[in-house]
């Protein structure tokens, strides 16, 4: 298509992101811009652990922040007991381990840490994650990785409905099955489902890629199957090996799905507007 080369000619793909967020000015060429000015400098060799059984949600999150402030780079939290909103808003590198399960909104709004959860997570885990990894050993609830923008989000068990709704980047890997409306309005990024999927997979997806190894109950509007390339196979093998996971019937059995882009009408005028232009 002509438009692709045009956008390349215009330099849209090599463009250096520069500008201002609400908080600060930044330029992509400067080293210090890879961290937030208010993030903590931590040492991975300095470790700490604490028992969260009798602590409230705020007490646990403040405790994690205090430990990061004092330079602890490896933190283990015991007995989180499915409390909500634990490990949220961490914006620096960190090895965080939860020995147990999290409730709703676990590890949301994070940018950078490597989180390992030995139990299960509830709804909306790692919502809006920017970077880092979150690995969950057991099952996940609905809205797993809603609106994530980067990083790797891995669930070794099964996940609920609406996995990766509004995904804008990064990778979501689910070892088991997922529910209905997985990848709903997905905009970018990749999703690897090693089990079966529910109805309306990838409904109204704008862009991005979904790989499915199991059975697909039904595809949503404008989600189409495409050919699995060698690059895809290499990527899948690399990602799955990294987390010690395997496609049940081998990589070649995986189905690749993308947006059919039939709903892309952004540049088209509405019929009534056309009349006005004419």
């Amino acid at each position, binding site marked *: 298509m002509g438009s692709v080369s045009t956008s390349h000619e215009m330099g849209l793909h090599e463009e250096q992101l520069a500008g201002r967020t609400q908080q600060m000015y930044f330029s992509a060429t400067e080293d210090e811009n890879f961290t937030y000015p208010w993030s903590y400098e931590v040492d991975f060799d300095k470790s700490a652990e604490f028992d969260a*059984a009798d602590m409230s949600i705020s007490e646990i999150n403040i405790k994690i922040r205090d430990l990061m402030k004092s330079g602890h780079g490896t933190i283990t939290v015991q*007995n989180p*007991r*499915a*409390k*909500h909103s634990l490990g949220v808003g961490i914006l620096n590198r960190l090895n965080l381990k939860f020995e*147990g*399960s999290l*409730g*709703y909104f676990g590890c949301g709004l994070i940018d950078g840490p490597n989180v390992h959860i030995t*139990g*299960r997570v*509830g*709804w909306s885990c790692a919502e809006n994650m920017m970077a880092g990894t979150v690995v969950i050993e*057991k*099952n996940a*609830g*609905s809205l797993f990785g809603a609106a994530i923008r980067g990083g790797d989000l891995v669930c070794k*068990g*099964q996940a*609920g*409905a*609406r996995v990766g709704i509004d995904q804008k980047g990064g990778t979501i890997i689910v070892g088991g*099955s997922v*529910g*209905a*409306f997985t990848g709903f309005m997905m905009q970018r990024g990749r999703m690897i489902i090693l089990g079966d999927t*529910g*109805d309306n997979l990838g409904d109204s997806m704008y862009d991005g890629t979904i790989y499915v190894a199991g059975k697909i109950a039904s595809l949503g509007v404008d989600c189409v199957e495409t050919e699995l390339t060698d690059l895809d196979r290499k990527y899948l093998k690399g990602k799955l090996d990294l987390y010690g996971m395997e496609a049940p019937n081998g990589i070649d059995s995986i189905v690749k799905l993308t947006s059919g882009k039939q709903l892309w009408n952004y540049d088209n005028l509405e019929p009534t507007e056309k009349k006005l232009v004419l």
Partner: protein
Amino acid sequence: MCGIAGLIWKGGVTSDIGSEMTQMLQALKHRGPDSTGFALYGKGEEGVHVMRFKVAEQEEMKKGFDIHRRVIERKAEVDTRLEEMGAEVTAREEATEYAFRYHFKFGGNLKRLIDFIEDIDGVEILSVGKGLELIKDLGDATVVADQYRLKGFVGTHAIGHTRMATESDVDIRSAHPYWAYPFNDVSVVHNGQLTNYWTKRRDLERRGHRFMSNCDSELIAVYIADRIDQGEDLESAMRRSIDQLDGVFTYLVATSDQLGMAKDVMAAKPMVLYESDEFVGLASEEVAIRSIFPREIDTWDPYQGEVKVWAA
């Protein structure tokens, strides 16, 4: 946004379900602080009915004209009508000034008896059953459990509800669980909104079913009652409800020896499930199940359109 919870001990095992359900619902308090309700299933005695009823709303107790005299009159009228119908009351207990628990023996048509009692102004029967005891009132789980002395209630299974009122008033009649009038021992709790409430309500009313409130959740109880009346078993009635009821819902139904759950096709309302060889626990959030099992357990979310039924 309400919180629902259910538990069942398998193989006829009994436990202090009163305390267990109180703990589960207290953990869900943040999902709905308006009112709390319990449907507890005890062993019961052969041939004895347990009836839970109220003769006034809490608001009426605060503001009603001459209400303290009138609740006594209403209760006396209930006693008279029970005697008139030939029911033999074996025990009378006062839970609060306006809520009572009666044990009675009765061999006649139970629906007629219930209709006759509910005909009294201000009187609502919360439940009638051999094992079922339905308790609901304003306040959180601990408040209601203390008020009605529920700790130490031994039984096999229970469902409960913490309510955030969105569709109707904050009063006892709009609180869950709902008893599937006039069927012994059937109760329902629901989290969600039903969008075809009026269509279905008119349909069921034409077939002689009673609605006590304007709460959409009552429809599920009446719907299940209607299906049981048609001779359907619990599981197929619940499967049919997935197609018949519109909206978003997750609900639990309990009968004298069964506990069931159903989830709508959008999977819009949460439910976490824990199942072991001797116990099944369900709740809107895992914290509720963890309040009775602090150790690590394996839980998962049931999928869209799923129906499950367990036996005690």
